[in-house]
Each structure stands twice: as C-alpha cells, then as structure tokens.
C-alpha cells in the first residue's frame, strides 16, 4: 500500500502567544517547530499500515524550506521519502495549499492508495484542506477519524461523536483526515534518525495567487483575569472546596 501523508510545520507554543511587531504572525524566534498532533497520528498510522501490509510512506509538506527538519523527524519513525513544496516563506491559504498538495500527489510517479492528513492544522485550523484535496483528486474523503482499519481495499473509519463512535467505510483510494488519539505516535529511535538522513527529499517550488481571505491583523485575545478566589491550602482549602461545590450545585 502506498500512502501519502500531508504534514505541516507549526510552531510549538507554551502558554502564551507572542506576535511579531506588525501583528501579522506569531513571533517564532524563540520557539521550536513540530507537527500538529493530528498529523503525527497520521504518519504513525501510515507507518503502521505499511509495516503490516508493505508499501511506502511518502510525506508531502508545503511551506517553509526548513520544514525538512520535520520531514526528517517523521522519516526517522519510518516514512520512506518526501516531497517538500517550498513556498519561499509564504503561507498558502487552504485553497492554495490544497491545489499544490493535489498537484504533487497526482503528478507523482506513485499511485497512492491512501492520502492521510490531519483533520485541521494546529495553527490555522481551517478544517478544509483535506476535503479540498479530495475534490481536486476526485477521491472520497472521511474526516476527523479516530479509528482506522483497512481490509481488502476498504477503509473502515470511526469518528467520535459525543460518547459514541460513528462508523464510515470507504473504498480506496481515498483521502482520510485523522485526529489526535487515533494512535499513540512512536518516538523516533537513533537508528531511525540515522537512516532518515539518507532518505530522499524532492524539493519543488510553488507560487500561488493572493488569498481571498486576507489577514488584517492577528490578536491574542485578552485573557479576562477571572481573579480566582484563593481557597488556600491543606485541610482548610479542602473544606472550602466542598463548600464551593455545594454552592455551584454539583454536590447536594
């Protein structure tokens, strides 16, 4: 089974977001980068499927050329090759990203049986790129998947809704977008990293037209300081906490 996994380099943030002086981007000078958790699960799922069924995992990353760092990281857990679509530092919107990803997938020598993506990126959170890719490729798409089994060319997908799970089946080839919790991604081993350094990365250039959703500025919402009431510590606080729970009606 040949699987393409679309991944995106995103900053790894702490508890505060700091913006650049023009408020047009997150100041990433002091932070590291990684993948959205959803996408880590997508890569893990792909690697596991190929371990079980044979085939290959191709990573496709669109964005900054430094995304190679994230590509190597995922190659270290088992992806075989990668296509890095270099945007020359520009941030594509979902339409542009989907176009470039679909082009890369359809023009590749490999006929992919499955395209895995995250249900939405951690940073932009548009919840649409996977769907757009599917439309461009003429493939069915199942989104927000938290359970995935593939048997005889049919993918059985589970999606969490409240406390139950919906079941979808879809014949391959298909696009499936997944959510964190699909699996627990493995950590890369040192031999994995050493192998990853030698795996091929094809770099493509892409340019795209201006977006029809243009950011005027980013704003970090002002945290309404709730002015938490301090219940203190120890036994005294335990009593106070019980009282509060009675007051708000969770304890009768």
């Amino acid at each position, binding site marked *: 089974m040949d699987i393409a996994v679309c991944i995106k380099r995103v900053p790894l943030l702490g508890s505060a977001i700091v913006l650049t002086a023009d408020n047009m981007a997150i100041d990433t000078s002091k932070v590291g980068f990684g993948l959205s958790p959803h996408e880590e699960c997508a890569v893990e799922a792909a690697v596991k499927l190929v371990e079980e069924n044979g085939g290959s995992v191709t990573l496709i990353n669109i964005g900054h050329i430094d995304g190679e760092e994230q590509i190597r990281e995922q190659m270290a857990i088992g992806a075989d090759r990668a296509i890095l679509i270099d945007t020359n530092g520009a941030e594509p919107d979902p339409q542009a990203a989907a176009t470039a990803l679909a082009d890369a997938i359809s023009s590749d020598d490999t006929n992919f049986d499955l395209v895995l993506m995250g249900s939405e990126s951690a940073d*932009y959170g548009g919840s649409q790129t996977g*769907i757009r890719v599917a439309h461009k490729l003429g493939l069915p798409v199942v989104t927000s998947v938290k359970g995935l089994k593939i048997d005889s060319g049919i993918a059985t997908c589970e999606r969490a809704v409240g*406390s*139950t799970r919906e079941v979808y089946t879809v014949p391959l080839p298909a696009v499936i977008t997944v959510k964190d919790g699909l699996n627990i991604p493995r950590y890369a081993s040192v031999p994995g990293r050493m192998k990853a350094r030698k795996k091929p990365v094809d770099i493509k250039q892409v340019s795209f037209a201006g977006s029809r959703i243009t950011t*005027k500025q980013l704003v970090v919402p002002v945290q309404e300081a709730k002015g938490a009431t301090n219940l203190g510590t120890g036994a005294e606080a335990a009593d106070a906490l019980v009282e509060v729970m009675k007051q708000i009606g969770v304890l009768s």
Partner: protein
Amino acid sequence: MILVYAEHDRGELDPVTLQAISAAKALDADVQAVVVGHGAKDVAAELAAFGAVSVHVGNHPELLDFTPRAHARAVNALVTANSPRAVIAGGTPRGNEVLGHLAAMRDEPFASECVSIELASGDTAEIVRARWGGNLLDEATVTSSLLIATVQAHAFAATSADAPLSVSEFDVELADGDVLVRVEDRVGSSAGGVGLAEAKVVVSGGRGMDGPDAFVMLEEIAGVIGGAVGCSRVVTSAGWRPHAEQVGQTGTKVAPDLYLACGISGATQHIAGCKSAKTLIAINTDSQAPIMGFADYMVVDNVHTFLPLFIEKLKAASN
C-alpha cells in the same frame, strides 16, 4: 439572504446551529435554513423559533443518516438557486465538513470558526476567526460574493426570535459518489461511564499527577459526584491515561458546570478545551500557573497531599 446549514443527528438539532442562526440574524433578517436527512423535518419548528424565516428540507431516498458530501450538494443547489450572500453553519466537525465540501465544490474561500462576522459593502466581509483553538484571533477580510463561514461554538448566543414556521421541501440531486461516505453504524461509548463531552463535572489531571497511579484519586472524586475523568495532553502522550480522556485543542472540548484541574499548568492546547467550563477550579502548587488566569477558584497545594484530604471531606459531605 443568508442560508444556514442546520446540523442535526437523526432529528436532534445541534445547539451550535441555533447560535449560527442568531449570528446570521444579526447580519440580515432574511435567514433561511437548510436541513437534510432522516428527521430533518422534526427540527424545522425549532429553527423557526430561533428566527429562520424559511426552512428548506432536502429529501432523497438515499439520505438517511449523516452523509456529508450529499448535504453539501443540497446546500449547493440552494445557493445556486437563491444566491444567498452567505452560507453559515455551526463550527462543529459536521458543520465544518459540510461547508468544506461546499467550498470545494464552488472553489470559494471558507472561513471556519468565526467569532465575529460583518458583511461589508460589495463582495467583502470582515470576519474574525479563531486559530489555535481560540487562543489567537485572525481579523481578516473575505472577498467573495458568497461568504462561506462557520461560527465557533459558544461565540454567539442563541436567542429566540419567533419566525412563523415556513417549510419548503426540495429533492436533492446527487452526483456520483455523494453517498459513498456516510454514517453506516454507531458503536459503543468511547469514554465509558459518563461521557467526557457531556459530563457536568470533569475531574482532570495533568503533569503534576506525576504518573498514572494518582489518577485513582480523580476516579474516586468523579465517582462520588458523578463526573468524568479528563486529562491533559502530556498525560496521554506519556501513556498514563487513554486518549479519549484528553481535554484540549486536539482532544475533547468540554463545557461542564465544574472543571476541576489537578496539577495542570494550563498550556495553550489545554485551555482551548476547557475554558468554556462554567466554573473552573485549579489545584496547583504554583499560584501563578497560566491555568490560574482562567480559574474561578484556586487551591495552592500539591495534589498528592491535598487530594486525599479533599476526598475524605468530599465523602463525608456526600454521605
């Protein structure tokens, strides 16, 4: 006219849809709803009660349970026929999915998870959408004669605005493959006991629990007051608890009456999942931990020493 895609599950309307209607009403009095699938008609009255002046019910023998692309096809037909200024839905997995399909079909931009929408003159709309699970807001201009947007859950209040019930049914014309992906079955409960997303009380643990063992205490508390156990991403990454219990941007978003955060510092990713709680109580050794900024009450103590004390008192109080 603004068209709202009404999301329901076998006849039960999703509450965010009502928020979407209210958001749309603020832009244009002429808000119409489209609803598709088994049980669609059952929700029409409620849609009208919140202000939908017209409810379009799409029918097709094959459309029973949720079928995302087919729903988008139905919405698309109405868009083509009626040229609404905007299509709005609730910012839920289904709402985002259906409008994602719609946007892809029409090759239009799609602004998901909006917290503010203003229609400007001409083809532009000024929106504010949530990024990073709501920890960052993107003030943007959308240029399109058709604005496609979803509204973030809880960003708009649903207010009733009695409109006379006006239902019109239409047949949905499907394209190849539109029903390929649909809900075929439903299985078990994912959390066991009280579902995390619906729980009135969530007792949640983080890095400060120092390992899986201490979660026994959280289970005990949840048991006494009928709540669910949750946790932060650190906890599931470490394998201390199953992912189904993760609260956060990439886990479950909860809005319980009480969120009891034990040993959780409050990373961006976690806050995104719990800040809608009515009351948030945090137990942490650090009174300045980020979570305290969202808390209504704080206990500045170590969970390992405090929780046993608390459990004793809690049990006494509940007996």
